[in-house]
């Protein structure tokens, strides 16, 4: 009799045990998926690549250069009224700086001497030749006297950026002009990096993030600070247009998409396992 009763309760106990274990696994899965805050998802594709440089210092330098460009917001304020656009740019820069979400916001340029920009290259100028000058110097009919005369008699203005005695043939000037930064239409104007196109004023503002563009803890406060500053900007200057770029603007949606996909896969798998069991 006792043995029969025990036998009849055994399936119930097994079912209860299984139910408890299944619930515990489901809860554990749910906690792993949702209960630990942001998922440790790596969205920086470059960080997933193997090292490419032989020397660790070179690798470190490459990474620092990549982050120097990638870990910042680049904003351009565009408006028809030059004075108003510049005033708004200064205000936007100050608001972003006050937010504390950035290590540095560059709107108003610090004092610097344009002539000093060429200084680091002067010592190496004999190795720095533009492609055209390198090709010209190798030609058998190259006439240095003619080349010098052309340089000294350029129309309107002589050389800018280097002293004549340092660079009489203009080789360093032309090499500098070949560099990417020389092609920028942005010029310092009223202590702001400014360009003018189609009668409109464009002012550059650069905001350096407090960490990686791909770090969720960096993205959220930075984007929130920008949204807040943009709201103030549009309230005070509704006619101005704010353009933006930077890895952070693409990394945040990429992270959201990755998290969504991870959650979807996790839930589907859990449900599938439950159904199979």
């Amino acid at each position, binding site marked *: 009799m006792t043995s029969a009763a025990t036998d009849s309760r055994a399936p119930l106990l097994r079912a209860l045990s299984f139910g408890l274990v299944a619930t515990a696994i489901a809860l554990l899965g749910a906690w792993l998926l949702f209960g630990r805050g942001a998922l440790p998802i790596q969205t920086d594709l470059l960080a997933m690549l193997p090292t490419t440089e032989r020397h660790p210092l070179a690798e470190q330098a490459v990474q620092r250069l990549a982050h120097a460009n990638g870990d910042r917001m680049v904003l351009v304020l565009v408006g028809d009224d030059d004075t108003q656009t510049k005033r708004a740019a200064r205000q936007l820069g100050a608001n972003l700086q006050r937010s504390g979400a950035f290590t540095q916001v560059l709107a108003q340029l610090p004092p610097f001497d344009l002539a000093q920009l060429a200084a680091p290259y002067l010592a190496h100028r004999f190795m720095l030749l533009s492609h055209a000058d390198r090709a010209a110097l190798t030609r058998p009919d190259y006439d240095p006297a*003619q080349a010098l005369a052309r340089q*000294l008699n350029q*129309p309107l*203005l002589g050389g800018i950026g280097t*002293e004549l005695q340092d660079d009489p043939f203009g080789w360093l000037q032309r090499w500098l002009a070949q560099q990417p930064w020389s092609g920028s239409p942005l010029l310092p104007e009223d202590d702001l990096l400014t360009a003018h196109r189609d009668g409109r004023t464009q002012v550059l503002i650069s905001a350096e993030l407090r960490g990686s563009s791909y770090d969720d803890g960096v993205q959220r406060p930075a984007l929130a600070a920008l949204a807040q500053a943009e709201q103030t900007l549009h309230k005070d200057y509704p006619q101005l247009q704010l353009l933006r770029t930077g890895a952070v603007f693409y990394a945040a949606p990429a992270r959201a998409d990755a998290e969504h996909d991870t959650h979807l896969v996790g839930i589907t798998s859990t449900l599938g396992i439950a159904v199979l069991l």
Partner: protein
Amino acid sequence: MRRMRVWLLALLWPLTLAAQTQPDAALLRQVLDQLASHPQVRAQFVQQRDNPALARAQESRGQLLFVLGHGMLWQTREPFQESLAIGSGHVARIDAQGQLQVVRGGAQGINQVAQMLQSLLAGDSAQALRQFDIQASGETARWTLRFTPTQARTAKVLTSITLQGGSYLDEIDVRMASGEQTRIHFSDSRAAGALSDLERHALGLP
């Protein structure tokens, strides 16, 4: 000469807009109108450049063609032969076959001046006032415009640009902070008349 006039026009226009603060705004307006009446100009030029690093001044001669809205053709004849087409944001050298070769870098200063000129010709008078303080003196038959940079960084490189002229632009004087001085004197200024195929090609005219 034509270009000089365009320069004056562009420079003068901002001045006319700032008539409230410029006592010679009327003169500027008149000069501007005067210059605007010559859309295509040819002239002979003599350019002299003094530099503290040179034992003697450099001198070059040639002719200039200026076409409003398309830039200028700067043709040096002495001490070497060279033709430069200076447009909006670019400088191109014209080779013996008449082909244009874009000049990079060495013409950066020229390029900047040409860009400013083109923007002024396009009616962007505000740009000149953003960059320069402009003083006008004389009368329409003989006027002088002096441009002094208002931007501190520009002033460290460029001291002043002075234009002089009458019906046409007669002289440009560019003084750099390094002590370099470039004086360009224009003579025989006149309406350009018909342009050759090479001139039209160089200036991007149809």
